[in-house]
């Protein structure tokens, strides 16, 4: 990038970085407000949404917590299973041939269509939400993990092979570390996706548990636009936070990768 613009600023603090999106955001907010004033039945005014959040912060916080729990537990479960399966697949070729087509079918199946069946099977508690969220993140994580486990440098593999490294040693010392950048890239996609999964699950099974999705369904049935958009705003922030957590973890844990990348660009 341009090294000379904004000298002395850290990258994120350069005016060139934050001014354009801020302007775009302001323009969008202005247009929203203008439209809301003339069409109060279509969208609420911004101050109405904000006052919702300010008036009942604990209410939104409690519902957000439920949705976050569903998203995090479901995502951890789905990503964990996908990772184990990817390791197994890269270890035993037959498993890959057998399972990959099934995973592709699972991927093109709209999970939402199966969701009511999951509610019938698991009831209205947390379980169906975990399952749906896990299913949503499963496939993208599986594919990325598979690619990552295969993205090894062939010459490094040669070196390990001449040392007579076992398959387990190749897995631990070469495949897993090589796959880490891919796993983080997948997590950057999957964590925000898990929020969507949790909300959709709540739409279908808006039962005993609360949560932002349940809140939206209930508010919609009452025609309460302010609450809906307040919940949507909280969801958006949640997605961003999830994304940032992954980015920060990656920056902390994968220093070798970023330094290798900058060296390659230099």
């Amino acid at each position, binding site marked *: 990038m341009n090294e000379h613009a904004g000298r002395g600023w850290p990258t994120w603090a350069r005016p060139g970085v934050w001014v354009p999106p801020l302007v775009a955001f302001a323009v969008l907010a202005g247009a929203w407000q203008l439209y809301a004033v003339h069409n109060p039945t279509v969208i609420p005014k911004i101050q109405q949404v904000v006052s919702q959040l300010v008036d009942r912060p604990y209410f939104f916080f409690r519902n957000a917590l439920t949705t976050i729990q569903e998203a995090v537990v479901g995502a951890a479960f789905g990503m964990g299973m996908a990772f184990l399966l990817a390791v197994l697949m890269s270890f035993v070729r037959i498993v890959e041939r057998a399972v990959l087509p099934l995973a592709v079918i699972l991927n093109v199946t709209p999970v939402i269509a199966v969701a009511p069946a999951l509610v019938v099977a698991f009831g209205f508690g947390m379980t169906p939400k975990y399952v749906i969220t896990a299913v949503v993140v499963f496939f993208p994580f599986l594919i990325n993990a598979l690619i990552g486990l295969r993205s090894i*440098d062939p*010459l*490094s593999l*040669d*070196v*390990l*092979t*001449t*040392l*007579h*490294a*076992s398959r387990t*040693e190749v897995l631990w*010392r*070469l495949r897993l*570390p090589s796959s*880490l950048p891919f796993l983080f890239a997948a997590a950057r996609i999957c964590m925000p996706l898990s929020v969507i999964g949790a909300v959709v699950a709540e739409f279908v099974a808006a039962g005993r548990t609360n949560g932002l999705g349940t809140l939206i369904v209930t508010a919609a049935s009452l025609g309460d636009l302010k609450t809906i958009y307040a919940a949507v705003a909280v969801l958006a922030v949640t997605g961003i936070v999830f994304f940032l957590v992954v980015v920060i973890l990656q920056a902390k844990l994968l220093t*070798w*990768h970023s*330094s*290798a990348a*900058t*060296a*390659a660009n230099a």
Partner: protein
Amino acid sequence: MPGLAPVPHHEAGPSVGRSGAASAPAVLLRAVSKSFGPRQAAVPAVDDVTLSVETGKFVTVIGPSGCGKTTLLRIVAGLLDPDRGDVSVFGSPVGRAVEAKGIGFVPQSPALLPWRTVLENVQLPLQVNEKAHLADGRVRRDPVEVLESFGLGNVLGRRPAQLSGGMQQRVAIARAFVFDPPVLLMDEPFAAVDELTREVLRHELLSVWQGSRKTVLFVTHSIPEAIALSDAVVIMSPHPGRIEKVVPVDLPRPRGDLVETTVEFHELERQVRMEIRRSWKPEGPEG
């Protein structure tokens, strides 16, 4: 098969070093051929190669790009199985030598693990397949000492991305020396560095090798490098990859910085150049 093979392979073929004793050579290839591609359209990469390297000798393979040098080295390392012919290391099949961690391999690019520091990269061969080490009671050399002998004592904690190309090559070579394998295979380890660094690395390698006297099979594109380093220069020709000629190098050891300036050196250089010109002629006017 075209009958131009310069080397009769009823016996050990071009042999390097003249021990004459009954002991098996460190590396022995007999009528080794390897093709790539589907059976009908197979392109031979290495054709009918017979070569014997005696223990403790430094042998260089020189040849144009694509003549099968890497393929040959990978066959000796047990990474590729030849289509025909056989390979042995100290009289046993290659697989045995690999199981015992008897072969050190320096690939064409450094192939360091980017998440490991310099020191950790050099420790890798000691960590992998540990049983082989306990089995034959070989010396486990101290990684720090090996790195110091290659002038890397002050970058132990750095990551490969923070090193220059020449330093990365040094680390890759140190990684091959650290577990003390009796046979070292090096595939153009200096190809990616500039001429000046190359000469420095060459002398470093020579002085470390002088102290251990491993058997080395070394691939290069450079004639002076081949002569300065080795006891014999194996000239390969392309399409298909064959051995054209083995030129013995009888320069005294240890060789100092100034071997390149001696009359004998220049005479050998001329001789190798002539051989190369003769054997590669069909490829074009360039010599």
